């Protein structure tokens, strides 16, 4: 057990810090959080700067256009960019954190060459078309149909809660290529396609979130033609590819935010000291202390998961029946996601107590964050679903059905 960074890692950190100090002042002012086209421009501009400096797709394999950096270097990157106040992935979330890695792992050479560089350069934005009105937690029951017509699939159906759909160029789309029947169970017959968002027949209708923004949308697909060459993985083998995507989404995608939460916690403490709540309310003070312990441990859990994944498994981490699953993205990720999503909500509930009457003023960014924190126990698999995964796949309890 060693938490010290190696000399090489410290060199990497030093160079990164130096670059950030020069690069960040060149960034235009951040757009209004509700202005999605503005956010796309801002986020992709930042991605382009990272690309030109050699920091794009740091943790992607080199043959996918990435830098092939170690997961530890990726953690250092997240720490330092957050500390320096750099933007987070934002609109690039899906492309960089799960569609891209899925294509890198499962795509053909041509597909990698076509799709990955534009993600890294910030030229193209991806979104995720998995959920449907009737298929959220029970994703495998999706009904959007794809019928083969020569060298195209003709796709019809609808998707919902598609984040960034308004500004995306491509969509990782799940479709049903084989109807469910006595011989085809619902997890079979699903196919993973890449769909151009400007293809004829795609209609995007923004949905307003409870936080007031239009960060996700409904999508209606009406005889959309998708070339067969844009299929990732085999026809009807999409569920397996989907598991790869979800393991990236749950395993690594939220890690950078822990650093941000720790910074916010420090701001909460300062504000409470300034406005007198600190001395007046010992219970509030203690909650802040507890959150300090929680977020510190969440960061340690991240470091542990990353160490396990880069060192091969050193066996089980103790409990959990010796399954040793913590290096596998998705499962260790479920442990992290369960606690993180809850802790983030507690953080902003506490922020409201620090603010007192100002907790009702939407102009304060903490109140926007308080609203959006409500999505964390829902998006990317609800807490109930994560608990099923932990119980069944780590603890080996019997399946529900």
């Amino acid at each position: 057990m060693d938490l010290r960074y190696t000399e090489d890692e410290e060199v990497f950190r030093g160079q990164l810090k130096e670059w950030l100090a020069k690069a960040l002042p060149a960034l235009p002012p951040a757009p209004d959080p509700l202005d999605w086209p503005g956010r796309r421009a801002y986020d992709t501009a930042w991605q382009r700067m990272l690309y030109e400096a050699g920091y794009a797709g740091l943790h992607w394999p080199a043959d996918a256009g990435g830098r092939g950096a170690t997961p530890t270097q990726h953690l250092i990157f997240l720490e330092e960019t957050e500390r320096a106040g750099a933007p987070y992935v934002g609109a690039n979330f899906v492309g960089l954190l799960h569609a891209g890695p899925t294509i890198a792992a499962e795509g053909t050479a041509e597909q990698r060459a076509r799709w990955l560089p534009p993600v890294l350069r910030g030229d193209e934005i991806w979104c995720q078309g998995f959920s449907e009105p009737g298929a959220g937690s029970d994703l495998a029951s999706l009904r959007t149909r794809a019928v083969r017509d020569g060298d195209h699939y003709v796709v019809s159906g609808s998707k919902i809660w598609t984040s960034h759909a308004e500004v995306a160029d491509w969509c990782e789309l799940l479709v049903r290529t084989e109807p469910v029947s006595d011989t085809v169970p619902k997890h079979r017959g699903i196919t993973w396609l890449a769909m151009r968002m400007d293809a004829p027949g795609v209609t995007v209708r923004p949905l307003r979130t409870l936080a007031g923004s239009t960060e996700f949308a409904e999508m209606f697909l009406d005889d959309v033609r998708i070339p067969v060459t844009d299929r990732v993985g085999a026809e009807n083998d999409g569920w397996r590819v989907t598991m790869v995507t979800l393991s990236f989404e749950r395993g690594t995608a939220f890690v950078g935010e822990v650093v941000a939460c720790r910074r916010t916690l420090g701001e909460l403490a300062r504000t409470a000291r300034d406005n007198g709540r600190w001395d007046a309310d010992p219970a509030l003070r203690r909650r802040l202390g507890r959150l300090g312990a929680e977020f510190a441990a969440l960061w340690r859990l991240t470091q542990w998961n990353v160490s396990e994944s880069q060192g091969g498994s050193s066996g089980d981490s103790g409990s959990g029946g010796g399954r040793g699953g913590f290096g596998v993205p998705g499962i260790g990720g479920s442990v992290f996601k369960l606690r993180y999503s809850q802790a983030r909500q507690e953080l902003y509930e506490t922020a409201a107590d620090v603010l007192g009457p100002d907790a009702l003023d939407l102009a304060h960014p903490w109140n926007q964050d308080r609203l959006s924190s409500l999505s964390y126990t829902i998006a990317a698999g609800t807490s109930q679903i994560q608990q099923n995964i932990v119980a069944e796949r780590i603890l080996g309890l019997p399946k529900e059905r």
Partner: protein
Amino acid sequence: MEFRLTEDQLALRTGFRALLDGRFGRDELRAAVERPVIDRALWRELGDAGLFSLRLPEADGGVGLGLPEAVLVFEEAGRALLPGPLVATHLAAGTVPGADTGRTVVAASDGALVEWLAEADEVVGEAGDARPVRSVDPLTPLHRVSGERADRPAAALLTAALQLGSAARTTELAVQYAKEREQFGRPIGAFQAVKHLCARMLVRTELARVAVYAAAVTSGAGDGVRAPDTDVAGAKLLADDAAVRNARDCIQVHGGMGFTWESDVHLHLKRAWVRAGQWITEAEAEELIAAAL
């Protein structure tokens, strides 16, 4: 950064688990509950295995390892519910003669509580006005004292490691029972209400684990008199939480059986309560971490 167990650390843990399974299994635990005295022969065997001398330099007859290794071994002791003033004796190795080999049993006062006072050969700290209490834990005789809370970060951290072991063990016990016990024609672990209790137990355990391990690496929690740092306080806070809440959930998963003296789970809960009151409490830890924010 290699924040995971090395081969040597894994071997150390496996070795201690095997030793404790063989020497202090279920029968010994239940026998000890009936007759709560320190098994001097066992104490010496633990001494020979290096439990107390683990961090003494090899030149002084110790094992020459550090806090990360000590934490792993104490985690195993916590799993086994091993009784006795383990932390106090371990910390006395090198200063109280015979502590390192397990020939001398050492108790310590943290300013509020002393465990195993009457059975100990030596007592570290102020225990002049110690008065016995009817301990909630049948396997931990307790005295209350009214001194100043002693700041011993290493003691807080090793106590957290014991709590971690207990939390991991009650998770296992709950999962095991949930796989075996059938109701409505299926194992109760197939029911989501039970499944989710177990999943939350694991999450608590894993969070406590990384906090304890990290504090062992970073804090350099020497034995000197200085306040526990926030890493140690955080580790103790999360480990206390995991031990106490997991034991409660484990009792719930065991149903009526969990409420009997026959089941071991109540012993985990009672010991977890005792430890949660030792060295640094929830409120003290939270205040300490808050002050550093």
